[in-house]
Protein backbone atom coordinates (compact mmCIF):
# COMPACT_ATOMS: atom_id res chain seq x y z
CA UNK A 1 0.00 0.00 0.00
CA UNK A 2 0.99 3.63 -0.33
CA UNK A 3 2.60 4.69 2.96
CA UNK A 4 0.91 7.47 4.94
CA UNK A 5 2.67 10.06 7.10
CA UNK A 6 1.03 11.32 10.32
CA UNK A 7 2.04 13.23 13.41
CA UNK A 8 1.43 12.01 16.94
CA UNK A 9 2.03 13.91 20.18
CA UNK A 10 4.43 12.33 22.65
CA UNK A 11 1.88 13.12 25.34
CA UNK A 12 -0.62 10.86 23.57
CA UNK A 13 1.74 7.90 23.48
CA UNK A 14 0.43 6.40 26.77
CA UNK A 15 -3.09 6.45 25.33
CA UNK A 16 -2.00 4.07 22.58
CA UNK A 17 -1.00 1.32 25.00
CA UNK A 18 -4.17 1.95 27.04
CA UNK A 19 -6.31 1.56 23.96
CA UNK A 20 -4.51 -1.54 22.70
CA UNK A 21 -4.95 -3.12 26.14
CA UNK A 22 -8.57 -2.07 26.46
CA UNK A 23 -9.19 -3.68 23.09
CA UNK A 24 -7.63 -6.84 24.55
CA UNK A 25 -4.39 -6.78 22.60
CA UNK A 26 -1.36 -8.10 24.50
CA UNK A 27 1.47 -5.56 24.09
CA UNK A 28 5.09 -6.64 24.00
CA UNK A 29 7.59 -3.83 24.62
CA UNK A 30 11.15 -3.30 25.83
CA UNK A 31 11.44 -2.77 29.59
CA UNK A 32 14.48 -2.29 31.83
CA UNK A 33 15.54 -5.00 34.26
CA UNK A 34 18.61 -3.67 36.04
CA UNK A 35 21.27 -3.62 33.34
CA UNK A 36 19.36 -5.59 30.74
CA UNK A 37 16.44 -4.54 28.56
CA UNK A 38 13.90 -7.29 27.96
CA UNK A 39 10.91 -7.44 25.67
CA UNK A 40 7.92 -8.40 27.78
CA UNK A 41 4.17 -7.94 28.10
CA UNK A 42 3.36 -4.47 29.41
CA UNK A 43 0.19 -2.90 30.75
CA UNK A 44 1.13 0.74 30.24
CA UNK A 45 3.77 2.98 28.73
CA UNK A 46 5.51 3.64 32.03
CA UNK A 47 8.72 1.59 32.35
CA UNK A 48 8.69 0.95 28.60
CA UNK A 49 12.33 1.71 27.77
CA UNK A 50 11.94 3.85 24.64
CA UNK A 51 15.26 5.50 25.31
CA UNK A 52 17.14 2.22 25.27
CA UNK A 53 19.53 1.79 22.36
CA UNK A 54 18.37 -1.79 21.86
CA UNK A 55 16.82 -4.56 23.87
CA UNK A 56 19.37 -7.13 25.06
CA UNK A 57 17.55 -9.91 23.27
CA UNK A 58 15.94 -9.38 19.87
CA UNK A 59 12.20 -9.21 19.33
CA UNK A 60 12.08 -12.61 17.64
CA UNK A 61 10.53 -14.15 20.74
CA UNK A 62 7.21 -12.58 19.70
CA UNK A 63 6.87 -15.29 17.07
CA UNK A 64 9.70 -17.64 18.08
CA UNK A 65 10.01 -17.82 21.89
CA UNK A 66 12.91 -19.53 23.67
CA UNK A 67 10.57 -22.26 24.91
CA UNK A 68 7.36 -23.16 23.10
CA UNK A 69 5.05 -26.11 23.53
CA UNK A 70 4.13 -27.90 20.32
CA UNK A 71 2.56 -31.10 21.63
CA UNK A 72 0.84 -32.65 24.65
CA UNK A 73 0.87 -36.41 25.12
CA UNK A 74 -0.36 -39.00 27.63
CA UNK A 75 0.62 -42.66 27.89
CA UNK A 76 -2.18 -45.21 27.73
CA UNK A 77 -1.74 -48.89 28.58
CA UNK A 78 -0.65 -49.67 25.05
CA UNK A 79 -0.71 -46.38 23.14
CA UNK A 80 0.19 -42.69 23.40
CA UNK A 81 -2.48 -40.00 22.95
CA UNK A 82 -1.22 -36.79 21.39
CA UNK A 83 -2.72 -33.32 21.01
CA UNK A 84 -0.78 -30.80 18.96
CA UNK A 85 -0.92 -27.13 19.90
CA UNK A 86 -3.28 -25.28 17.57
CA UNK A 87 -1.54 -22.23 16.01
CA UNK A 88 -4.92 -20.54 15.57
CA UNK A 89 -5.16 -20.23 19.34
CA UNK A 90 -2.55 -17.48 19.52
CA UNK A 91 -3.80 -13.94 20.12
CA UNK A 92 -3.38 -10.83 17.96
CA UNK A 93 -0.38 -9.14 19.60
CA UNK A 94 1.34 -5.80 19.28
CA UNK A 95 5.11 -5.51 19.31
CA UNK A 96 5.76 -1.97 20.44
CA UNK A 97 8.83 0.20 20.62
CA UNK A 98 11.27 -2.17 18.98
CA UNK A 99 14.01 -1.04 16.58
CA UNK A 100 14.00 -1.23 12.77
CA UNK A 101 16.59 -4.02 12.87
CA UNK A 102 14.19 -6.06 15.01
CA UNK A 103 11.37 -5.53 12.55
CA UNK A 104 13.48 -6.31 9.51
CA UNK A 105 14.99 -9.29 11.34
CA UNK A 106 11.73 -11.10 10.76
CA UNK A 107 12.57 -11.12 7.00
CA UNK A 108 15.08 -13.89 7.65
CA UNK A 109 12.80 -15.80 10.01
CA UNK A 110 9.89 -15.54 7.53
CA UNK A 111 12.16 -16.91 4.82
CA UNK A 112 13.38 -19.80 6.96
CA UNK A 113 10.06 -20.81 8.52
CA UNK A 114 8.23 -20.07 5.24
CA UNK A 115 10.16 -22.80 3.44
CA UNK A 116 8.01 -25.84 2.74
CA UNK A 117 7.03 -27.64 4.84
CA UNK A 118 5.76 -24.36 6.26
CA UNK A 119 6.11 -23.84 10.00
CA UNK A 120 2.53 -22.88 10.86
CA UNK A 121 3.26 -22.24 14.52
CA UNK A 122 5.73 -19.49 13.64
CA UNK A 123 3.89 -18.12 10.65
CA UNK A 124 0.59 -17.74 12.50
CA UNK A 125 2.22 -15.96 15.40
CA UNK A 126 4.07 -13.69 13.00
CA UNK A 127 0.91 -13.01 11.02
CA UNK A 128 -0.91 -12.08 14.20
CA UNK A 129 1.86 -9.74 15.34
CA UNK A 130 1.68 -6.04 14.43
CA UNK A 131 5.03 -4.29 14.72
CA UNK A 132 5.39 -0.67 15.77
CA UNK A 133 9.09 0.11 15.45
CA UNK A 134 10.85 3.25 16.67
CA UNK A 135 13.61 4.51 14.41
CA UNK A 136 17.04 4.99 15.98
CA UNK A 137 18.11 8.44 17.14
CA UNK A 138 21.27 6.92 18.59
CA UNK A 139 23.69 4.15 17.67
CA UNK A 140 26.91 2.74 19.11
CA UNK A 141 30.17 1.31 17.78
CA UNK A 142 28.61 -2.15 17.51
CA UNK A 143 25.85 -1.04 15.10
CA UNK A 144 26.44 -1.70 11.41
CA UNK A 145 22.90 -1.97 10.00
CA UNK A 146 23.80 0.34 7.10
CA UNK A 147 26.46 -2.12 5.96
CA UNK A 148 23.95 -4.93 5.55
CA UNK A 149 21.26 -3.00 3.73
CA UNK A 150 19.38 -1.70 6.72
CA UNK A 151 19.46 1.60 8.54
CA UNK A 152 18.32 3.54 11.59
CA UNK A 153 15.13 4.50 9.79
CA UNK A 154 14.67 1.30 7.81
CA UNK A 155 10.96 0.56 7.55
CA UNK A 156 11.25 -2.98 6.16
CA UNK A 157 9.28 -5.41 8.31
CA UNK A 158 7.53 -2.71 10.35
CA UNK A 159 3.78 -2.11 10.12
CA UNK A 160 4.13 1.29 11.72
CA UNK A 161 7.27 3.22 12.37
CA UNK A 162 7.60 6.10 14.83
CA UNK A 163 10.31 8.74 14.58
CA UNK A 164 10.78 11.49 17.13
CA UNK A 165 11.03 14.74 15.18
CA UNK A 166 10.89 17.16 18.13
CA UNK A 167 10.47 17.17 21.88
CA UNK A 168 6.71 17.04 21.36
CA UNK A 169 6.07 15.32 18.07
CA UNK A 170 6.45 11.87 16.61
CA UNK A 171 6.38 11.16 12.90
CA UNK A 172 4.16 8.15 12.30
CA UNK A 173 4.67 6.14 9.13
CA UNK A 174 1.78 3.82 8.35
CA UNK A 175 3.41 1.17 6.21
CA UNK A 176 1.06 -1.81 5.87
CA UNK A 177 -2.57 -2.82 5.92
CA UNK A 178 -1.99 -4.31 9.34
CA UNK A 179 -0.50 -1.02 10.40
CA UNK A 180 -3.39 0.97 8.97
CA UNK A 181 -5.89 -1.30 10.72
CA UNK A 182 -4.15 -0.77 14.02
CA UNK A 183 -3.88 3.00 13.41
CA UNK A 184 -7.68 3.21 13.25
CA UNK A 185 -7.58 2.72 17.01
CA UNK A 186 -5.95 6.10 17.41
CA UNK A 187 -6.83 8.05 14.25
CA UNK A 188 -8.26 10.76 16.48
CA UNK A 189 -4.80 11.35 17.93
CA UNK A 190 -3.13 11.73 14.54
CA UNK A 191 -2.80 14.78 12.36
CA UNK A 192 -1.49 14.76 8.78
CA UNK A 193 2.21 15.42 8.39
CA UNK A 194 3.92 17.49 5.75
CA UNK A 195 5.00 15.13 2.96
CA UNK A 196 8.43 16.83 2.65
CA UNK A 197 9.60 15.94 6.15
CA UNK A 198 13.22 14.75 5.97
CA UNK A 199 13.17 11.87 8.46
CA UNK A 200 16.91 11.26 8.04
CA UNK A 201 17.65 14.47 9.96
CA UNK A 202 16.37 12.76 13.10
CA UNK A 203 18.24 9.52 12.70
CA UNK A 204 21.52 8.30 14.10
CA UNK A 205 24.50 8.33 11.76
CA UNK A 206 25.68 4.78 11.16
CA UNK A 207 28.74 4.55 8.90
CA UNK A 208 28.93 1.87 6.24
CA UNK A 209 32.02 -0.22 7.04
CA UNK A 210 31.93 -2.89 4.36
CA UNK A 211 30.32 -3.77 1.09
CA UNK A 212 27.89 -6.56 1.85
CA UNK A 213 28.08 -8.06 -1.62
CA UNK A 214 31.82 -8.55 -1.46
CA UNK A 215 31.50 -9.97 2.05
CA UNK A 216 28.96 -12.45 0.72
CA UNK A 217 31.21 -13.33 -2.20
CA UNK A 218 34.31 -13.71 -0.11
CA UNK A 219 32.59 -15.63 2.68
CA UNK A 220 31.33 -18.09 0.09
CA UNK A 221 34.86 -18.43 -1.24
CA UNK A 222 36.47 -18.80 2.18
CA UNK A 223 35.02 -22.13 3.23
CA UNK A 224 38.40 -23.83 3.13
CA UNK A 225 40.33 -20.93 4.63
CA UNK A 226 40.87 -22.79 7.93
CA UNK A 227 43.48 -20.28 9.11
CA UNK A 228 40.99 -17.40 8.83
CA UNK A 229 38.28 -19.12 10.88
CA UNK A 230 40.75 -20.39 13.46
CA UNK A 231 42.34 -16.97 13.84
CA UNK A 232 38.99 -15.25 14.32
CA UNK A 233 37.63 -17.84 16.74
CA UNK A 234 40.64 -18.73 18.90
CA UNK A 235 39.10 -16.89 21.83
CA UNK A 236 35.59 -18.23 21.17
CA UNK A 237 34.49 -20.30 24.16
CA UNK A 238 31.55 -21.92 22.40
CA UNK A 239 28.57 -20.53 24.29
CA UNK A 240 25.28 -19.69 22.64
CA UNK A 241 24.98 -16.05 23.65
CA UNK A 242 25.39 -14.71 20.11
CA UNK A 243 22.73 -16.98 18.65
CA UNK A 244 20.26 -16.41 21.47
CA UNK A 245 20.30 -12.63 21.25
CA UNK A 246 20.34 -12.66 17.43
CA UNK A 247 17.17 -11.47 15.64
CA UNK A 248 17.71 -13.86 12.73
CA UNK A 249 19.08 -17.05 14.30
CA UNK A 250 16.36 -19.65 13.87
CA UNK A 251 17.93 -22.94 14.84
CA UNK A 252 15.89 -24.96 17.29
CA UNK A 253 15.75 -28.27 19.05
CA UNK A 254 12.87 -30.46 20.24
CA UNK A 255 12.77 -31.84 23.74
CA UNK A 256 10.18 -34.04 25.43
CA UNK A 257 9.54 -33.39 29.09
CA UNK A 258 7.58 -36.19 30.65
CA UNK A 259 6.90 -38.28 33.68
CA UNK A 260 5.69 -41.85 33.71
CA UNK A 261 2.15 -40.77 32.76
CA UNK A 262 2.28 -37.81 30.41
CA UNK A 263 4.45 -35.17 28.86
CA UNK A 264 4.93 -32.24 26.52
CA UNK A 265 7.07 -31.72 23.45
CA UNK A 266 8.85 -28.38 23.47
CA UNK A 267 10.62 -26.38 20.79
CA UNK A 268 13.72 -24.68 22.18
CA UNK A 269 16.34 -22.36 20.79
CA UNK A 270 19.59 -24.03 19.83
CA UNK A 271 22.94 -22.69 18.72
CA UNK A 272 25.51 -23.81 16.18
CA UNK A 273 28.12 -22.60 18.64
CA UNK A 274 27.49 -25.57 20.94
CA UNK A 275 29.79 -28.55 20.51
CA UNK A 276 26.79 -30.89 20.80
CA UNK A 277 24.90 -29.11 17.99
CA UNK A 278 26.06 -31.53 15.33
CA UNK A 279 27.28 -34.39 17.48
CA UNK A 280 26.09 -37.71 16.08
CA UNK A 281 25.01 -40.62 18.24
CA UNK A 282 27.97 -42.52 16.82
CA UNK A 283 30.27 -40.10 18.57
CA UNK A 284 31.32 -38.52 15.26
CA UNK A 285 31.01 -34.74 15.05
CA UNK A 286 31.26 -33.16 11.59
CA UNK A 287 32.07 -29.85 13.28
CA UNK A 288 34.62 -31.11 15.72
CA UNK A 289 36.31 -27.87 16.72
CA UNK A 290 35.10 -24.38 17.57
CA UNK A 291 36.55 -22.72 14.47
CA UNK A 292 34.34 -24.93 12.31
CA UNK A 293 31.32 -23.86 14.37
CA UNK A 294 32.28 -20.21 13.98
CA UNK A 295 32.66 -20.73 10.25
CA UNK A 296 29.19 -22.26 10.17
CA UNK A 297 27.74 -19.23 11.93
CA UNK A 298 29.20 -16.78 9.42
CA UNK A 299 28.71 -18.98 6.35
CA UNK A 300 25.08 -19.58 7.27
CA UNK A 301 24.29 -15.90 7.45
CA UNK A 302 26.49 -14.63 4.61
CA UNK A 303 26.70 -17.54 2.17
CA UNK A 304 23.96 -20.13 2.58
CA UNK A 305 21.05 -17.79 3.27
CA UNK A 306 21.80 -15.35 0.47
CA UNK A 307 22.30 -18.31 -1.86
CA UNK A 308 19.24 -20.33 -0.89
CA UNK A 309 16.79 -17.81 0.60
CA UNK A 310 18.02 -14.63 -1.08
CA UNK A 311 18.37 -12.76 2.19
CA UNK A 312 21.45 -11.87 4.22
CA UNK A 313 20.98 -13.43 7.62
CA UNK A 314 22.21 -10.41 9.54
CA UNK A 315 20.64 -7.07 10.45
CA UNK A 316 23.78 -5.42 11.78
CA UNK A 317 22.22 -4.85 15.18
CA UNK A 318 25.49 -5.88 16.82
CA UNK A 319 23.74 -7.69 19.68
CA UNK A 320 26.02 -10.73 19.34
CA UNK A 321 29.09 -8.56 19.79
CA UNK A 322 27.63 -6.80 22.81
CA UNK A 323 26.63 -10.11 24.38
CA UNK A 324 29.84 -11.98 23.61
CA UNK A 325 31.74 -12.79 26.82
CA UNK A 326 35.05 -12.80 24.96
CA UNK A 327 34.44 -9.77 22.74
CA UNK A 328 34.09 -11.48 19.37
CA UNK A 329 33.10 -8.48 17.27
CA UNK A 330 31.20 -9.58 14.16
CA UNK A 331 31.48 -6.17 12.54
CA UNK A 332 35.24 -6.40 12.79
CA UNK A 333 35.37 -10.01 11.60
CA UNK A 334 33.12 -9.30 8.58
CA UNK A 335 35.22 -6.28 7.66
CA UNK A 336 38.27 -8.53 7.80
CA UNK A 337 36.60 -11.13 5.60
CA UNK A 338 35.49 -8.46 3.17
CA UNK A 339 38.91 -6.91 2.96
CA UNK A 340 40.87 -10.09 2.25
CA UNK A 341 42.17 -10.71 -1.19
CA UNK A 342 40.80 -14.03 -2.37
CA UNK A 343 40.36 -15.46 -5.82
CA UNK A 344 36.70 -15.77 -6.66
CA UNK A 345 36.43 -18.80 -8.89
Amino acid at each position, binding site marked *: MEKELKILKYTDLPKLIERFRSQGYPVLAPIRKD*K*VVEIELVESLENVALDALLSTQSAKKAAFPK*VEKVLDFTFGKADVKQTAVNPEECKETILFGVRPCDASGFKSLDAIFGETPKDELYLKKKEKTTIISFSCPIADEYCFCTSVGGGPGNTAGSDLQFTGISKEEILVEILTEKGAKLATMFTDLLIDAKSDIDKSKFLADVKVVFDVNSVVEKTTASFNNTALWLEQSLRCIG*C*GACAFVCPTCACFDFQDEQNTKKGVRLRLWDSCGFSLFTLHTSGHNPRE*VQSQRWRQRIMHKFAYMPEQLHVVGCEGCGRCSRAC*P*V*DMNIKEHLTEIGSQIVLIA
Partner: protein
Amino acid sequence: MSDLIKKVTQLLSDKTIDVFIGYEKGSADRIRATFTRTPEQAGKLIFDASCTQNLAGFLLKHEVKKLGKLGILANVSALRSIMQLASEFQIKDGEVLALFPNADNSFTEFTDFHSIEAYLETTDVGIKSEEQEMITRLEAMTVLERWAFWNKEFEKCIKCYACRAACPMCYCHRCTTDVNQPQWIPVASHELGNLDYHLMRAMHLAGRCVNCGECANACPMDIPLNLLTYQLIKPIHDTFGATAGMKADAVYALSTYKPDDKENFII
Protein backbone atom coordinates in the same frame (compact mmCIF):
# COMPACT_ATOMS: atom_id res chain seq x y z
CA MET B 1 58.20 -0.97 25.30
CA SER B 2 56.54 -2.44 28.38
CA ASP B 3 58.15 -5.14 30.56
CA LEU B 4 55.37 -7.47 29.48
CA ILE B 5 56.10 -7.07 25.78
CA LYS B 6 59.85 -7.43 26.45
CA LYS B 7 59.37 -10.60 28.47
CA VAL B 8 56.94 -12.21 26.01
CA THR B 9 59.08 -11.29 23.02
CA GLN B 10 61.99 -12.96 24.80
CA LEU B 11 60.01 -16.10 25.72
CA LEU B 12 58.75 -16.47 22.15
CA SER B 13 62.04 -15.79 20.42
CA ASP B 14 63.97 -18.25 22.59
CA LYS B 15 61.14 -20.76 22.06
CA THR B 16 60.52 -21.18 25.78
CA ILE B 17 56.88 -21.03 24.78
CA ASP B 18 55.04 -21.29 21.46
CA VAL B 19 52.06 -19.14 22.34
CA PHE B 20 51.30 -16.55 24.98
CA ILE B 21 47.74 -15.98 26.14
CA GLY B 22 47.39 -12.32 27.10
CA TYR B 23 45.18 -9.29 26.71
CA GLU B 24 44.83 -6.82 23.85
CA LYS B 25 42.59 -3.83 23.30
CA GLY B 26 39.06 -4.83 22.30
CA SER B 27 35.90 -3.18 20.99
CA ALA B 28 34.97 0.14 22.56
CA ASP B 29 36.44 0.18 26.08
CA ARG B 30 36.70 -3.59 26.37
CA ILE B 31 39.75 -5.81 26.48
CA ARG B 32 39.99 -9.27 24.97
CA ALA B 33 42.14 -12.37 25.06
CA THR B 34 44.85 -12.62 22.44
CA PHE B 35 47.10 -15.51 21.48
CA THR B 36 50.57 -14.25 20.65
CA ARG B 37 52.64 -16.69 18.60
CA THR B 38 55.42 -14.50 17.16
CA PRO B 39 57.62 -11.83 18.73
CA GLU B 40 56.14 -9.38 16.21
CA GLN B 41 52.62 -9.97 17.52
CA ALA B 42 53.76 -9.25 21.07
CA GLY B 43 53.53 -5.54 20.40
CA LYS B 44 49.78 -5.39 20.83
CA LEU B 45 49.86 -6.95 24.30
CA ILE B 46 48.50 -4.70 27.01
CA PHE B 47 48.05 -4.90 30.72
CA ASP B 48 46.11 -2.48 32.93
CA ALA B 49 43.47 -2.41 35.64
CA SER B 50 40.75 -3.40 33.17
CA CYS B 51 42.53 -6.69 32.37
CA THR B 52 40.71 -8.82 34.94
CA GLN B 53 39.42 -11.68 32.78
CA ASN B 54 40.59 -15.10 33.99
CA LEU B 55 42.39 -16.49 30.96
CA ALA B 56 43.05 -19.91 32.47
CA GLY B 57 40.00 -21.42 30.79
CA PHE B 58 41.80 -21.22 27.45
CA LEU B 59 44.53 -23.55 28.72
CA LEU B 60 42.18 -26.50 28.16
CA LYS B 61 40.74 -25.39 24.80
CA HIS B 62 41.62 -28.04 22.24
CA GLU B 63 42.59 -25.63 19.46
CA VAL B 64 44.71 -23.52 21.81
CA LYS B 65 46.55 -26.54 23.24
CA LYS B 66 47.42 -27.61 19.70
CA LEU B 67 49.44 -24.40 19.28
CA GLY B 68 52.21 -25.81 21.49
CA LYS B 69 53.81 -24.91 24.80
CA LEU B 70 51.56 -22.39 26.53
CA GLY B 71 52.41 -19.20 28.35
CA ILE B 72 49.72 -17.18 30.06
CA LEU B 73 49.22 -13.84 31.74
CA ALA B 74 47.81 -15.09 35.02
CA ASN B 75 46.18 -13.03 37.74
CA VAL B 76 45.42 -14.61 41.12
CA SER B 77 42.23 -16.26 39.83
CA ALA B 78 44.12 -17.75 36.91
CA LEU B 79 46.88 -19.05 39.17
CA ARG B 80 44.27 -20.67 41.41
CA SER B 81 42.50 -22.10 38.36
CA ILE B 82 45.78 -23.67 37.32
CA MET B 83 46.21 -25.19 40.80
CA GLN B 84 42.66 -26.53 40.85
CA LEU B 85 42.94 -27.93 37.32
CA ALA B 86 46.22 -29.53 38.32
CA SER B 87 44.58 -31.20 41.32
CA GLU B 88 42.02 -32.58 38.87
CA PHE B 89 44.75 -33.92 36.56
CA GLN B 90 43.89 -31.51 33.73
CA ILE B 91 47.26 -29.72 33.69
CA LYS B 92 50.66 -31.28 34.34
CA ASP B 93 53.50 -29.58 36.20
CA GLY B 94 55.74 -27.60 33.89
CA GLU B 95 53.17 -27.67 31.08
CA VAL B 96 52.26 -24.02 31.50
CA LEU B 97 54.38 -20.92 32.01
CA ALA B 98 52.57 -18.20 33.94
CA LEU B 99 53.44 -14.50 34.04
CA PHE B 100 51.99 -12.88 37.13
CA PRO B 101 51.53 -9.08 37.08
CA ASN B 102 52.97 -7.49 40.23
CA ALA B 103 51.69 -4.20 41.60
CA ASP B 104 54.80 -2.40 40.34
CA ASN B 105 54.08 -3.43 36.72
CA SER B 106 56.84 -6.01 36.86
CA PHE B 107 56.02 -9.65 36.09
CA THR B 108 56.89 -12.76 38.05
CA GLU B 109 57.51 -15.89 36.05
CA PHE B 110 56.03 -19.14 37.40
CA THR B 111 57.22 -22.31 35.67
CA ASP B 112 56.25 -24.94 38.25
CA PHE B 113 53.38 -25.66 40.59
CA HIS B 114 55.44 -25.40 43.72
CA SER B 115 56.31 -21.74 43.18
CA ILE B 116 52.65 -20.95 42.45
CA GLU B 117 51.58 -22.69 45.66
CA ALA B 118 54.22 -20.81 47.61
CA TYR B 119 53.00 -17.51 46.18
CA LEU B 120 49.31 -18.23 46.80
CA GLU B 121 49.99 -19.04 50.46
CA THR B 122 50.93 -15.42 50.95
CA THR B 123 48.01 -14.00 48.99
CA ASP B 124 44.50 -12.93 49.87
CA VAL B 125 42.18 -15.12 47.83
CA GLY B 126 38.91 -13.94 49.41
CA ILE B 127 35.95 -12.59 47.51
CA LYS B 128 35.43 -8.86 46.98
CA SER B 129 33.77 -6.90 49.76
CA GLU B 130 30.87 -5.80 47.53
CA GLU B 131 30.27 -9.45 46.65
CA GLN B 132 30.29 -10.34 50.36
CA GLU B 133 27.83 -7.52 51.06
CA MET B 134 25.49 -8.87 48.39
CA ILE B 135 25.67 -12.34 49.93
CA THR B 136 25.07 -10.96 53.42
CA ARG B 137 22.11 -9.01 52.09
CA LEU B 138 20.62 -12.17 50.59
CA GLU B 139 21.30 -14.21 53.71
CA ALA B 140 19.42 -11.61 55.71
CA MET B 141 16.28 -12.24 53.64
CA THR B 142 13.63 -14.80 54.49
CA VAL B 143 13.77 -18.05 52.56
CA LEU B 144 10.77 -17.02 50.48
CA GLU B 145 12.31 -13.64 49.68
CA ARG B 146 15.44 -15.40 48.48
CA TRP B 147 13.30 -17.77 46.42
CA ALA B 148 11.62 -14.75 44.84
CA PHE B 149 14.97 -13.09 44.23
CA TRP B 150 16.47 -16.05 42.42
CA ASN B 151 13.28 -16.79 40.50
CA LYS B 152 13.38 -13.24 39.15
CA GLU B 153 17.02 -13.70 38.20
CA PHE B 154 16.63 -17.15 36.69
CA GLU B 155 13.61 -16.02 34.64
CA LYS B 156 16.09 -13.95 32.64
CA CYS B 157 18.30 -16.95 31.88
CA ILE B 158 18.26 -18.03 28.23
CA LYS B 159 20.46 -21.12 28.74
CA CYS B 160 23.15 -19.83 26.42
CA TYR B 161 25.62 -21.55 28.78
CA ALA B 162 28.00 -18.61 28.61
CA CYS B 163 28.55 -19.09 32.36
CA ARG B 164 29.58 -22.69 31.80
CA ALA B 165 31.72 -21.87 28.78
CA ALA B 166 33.51 -19.05 30.63
CA CYS B 167 34.15 -21.07 33.80
CA PRO B 168 37.63 -22.57 33.90
CA MET B 169 36.31 -25.42 36.06
CA CYS B 170 33.49 -26.32 33.64
CA TYR B 171 35.74 -28.33 31.35
CA CYS B 172 33.63 -31.50 31.17
CA HIS B 173 33.07 -32.60 27.58
CA ARG B 174 29.63 -33.81 28.55
CA CYS B 175 27.97 -31.65 31.19
CA THR B 176 25.23 -33.13 33.34
CA THR B 177 22.89 -30.80 31.44
CA ASP B 178 23.76 -32.70 28.28
CA VAL B 179 22.98 -36.08 29.84
CA ASN B 180 19.63 -37.36 28.64
CA GLN B 181 19.52 -40.91 29.97
CA PRO B 182 17.94 -39.85 32.26
CA GLN B 183 17.29 -36.19 31.47
CA TRP B 184 18.47 -34.88 34.84
CA ILE B 185 18.19 -31.23 33.88
CA PRO B 186 15.37 -30.05 31.61
CA VAL B 187 17.01 -28.59 28.50
CA ALA B 188 14.32 -25.94 28.22
CA SER B 189 15.14 -22.59 29.78
CA HIS B 190 11.90 -22.34 31.71
CA GLU B 191 11.96 -21.57 35.45
CA LEU B 192 12.54 -25.18 36.43
CA GLY B 193 15.15 -25.89 33.78
CA ASN B 194 17.01 -22.77 34.80
CA LEU B 195 16.79 -23.44 38.53
CA ASP B 196 17.95 -27.03 38.08
CA TYR B 197 20.80 -26.02 35.86
CA HIS B 198 22.11 -23.32 38.15
CA LEU B 199 21.76 -25.36 41.35
CA MET B 200 23.45 -28.32 39.69
CA ARG B 201 26.27 -26.14 38.45
CA ALA B 202 26.73 -24.45 41.82
CA MET B 203 26.84 -27.83 43.54
CA HIS B 204 29.37 -29.16 41.04
CA LEU B 205 31.53 -26.12 41.69
CA ALA B 206 31.25 -26.36 45.45
CA GLY B 207 34.79 -26.65 46.74
CA ARG B 208 36.18 -26.09 43.22
CA CYS B 209 35.16 -22.50 42.50
CA VAL B 210 38.14 -20.13 42.58
CA ASN B 211 35.90 -17.03 42.70
CA CYS B 212 37.13 -15.47 39.46
CA GLY B 213 33.61 -14.28 38.62
CA GLU B 214 33.83 -15.21 34.93
CA CYS B 215 30.36 -16.82 35.04
CA ALA B 216 28.71 -13.57 36.10
CA ASN B 217 30.85 -11.48 33.74
CA ALA B 218 29.95 -13.73 30.84
CA CYS B 219 26.21 -13.69 31.46
CA PRO B 220 24.51 -11.62 28.75
CA MET B 221 21.43 -11.39 30.95
CA ASP B 222 23.40 -10.01 33.89
CA ILE B 223 22.51 -12.74 36.43
CA PRO B 224 24.74 -12.64 39.56
CA LEU B 225 25.58 -16.34 39.26
CA ASN B 226 28.87 -16.02 41.05
CA LEU B 227 27.01 -15.50 44.34
CA LEU B 228 25.69 -19.05 44.23
CA THR B 229 29.13 -20.59 44.28
CA TYR B 230 30.76 -17.82 46.33
CA GLN B 231 28.48 -18.29 49.30
CA LEU B 232 29.58 -21.94 49.55
CA ILE B 233 33.22 -20.97 49.86
CA LYS B 234 32.97 -19.91 53.50
CA PRO B 235 31.09 -22.92 54.88
CA ILE B 236 33.40 -25.26 53.00
CA HIS B 237 36.41 -23.47 54.40
CA ASP B 238 35.03 -23.20 57.92
CA THR B 239 33.62 -26.73 58.17
CA PHE B 240 36.15 -28.70 56.16
CA GLY B 241 39.14 -26.36 56.20
CA ALA B 242 39.38 -26.52 52.43
CA THR B 243 39.96 -23.75 49.89
CA ALA B 244 39.94 -24.46 46.17
CA GLY B 245 42.88 -23.79 43.90
CA MET B 246 45.64 -23.48 46.49
CA LYS B 247 47.56 -26.72 46.02
CA ALA B 248 48.22 -28.85 42.97
CA ASP B 249 47.89 -32.07 44.97
CA ALA B 250 44.93 -30.97 47.11
CA VAL B 251 42.20 -33.51 47.85
CA TYR B 252 38.76 -32.29 46.80
CA ALA B 253 36.70 -31.24 49.83
CA LEU B 254 33.76 -33.40 48.76
CA SER B 255 35.74 -36.53 48.05
CA THR B 256 37.20 -36.76 51.51
CA TYR B 257 35.78 -36.54 55.05
CA LYS B 258 36.58 -36.30 58.71
CA PRO B 259 34.84 -38.72 61.09
CA ASP B 260 33.94 -35.71 63.20
CA ASP B 261 32.70 -33.35 60.50
CA LYS B 262 30.33 -30.97 62.26
CA GLU B 263 26.65 -30.71 61.34
CA ASN B 264 23.53 -29.82 63.27
CA PHE B 265 20.71 -31.20 61.17
CA ILE B 266 21.01 -34.98 61.15
CA ILE B 267 18.86 -36.63 63.80
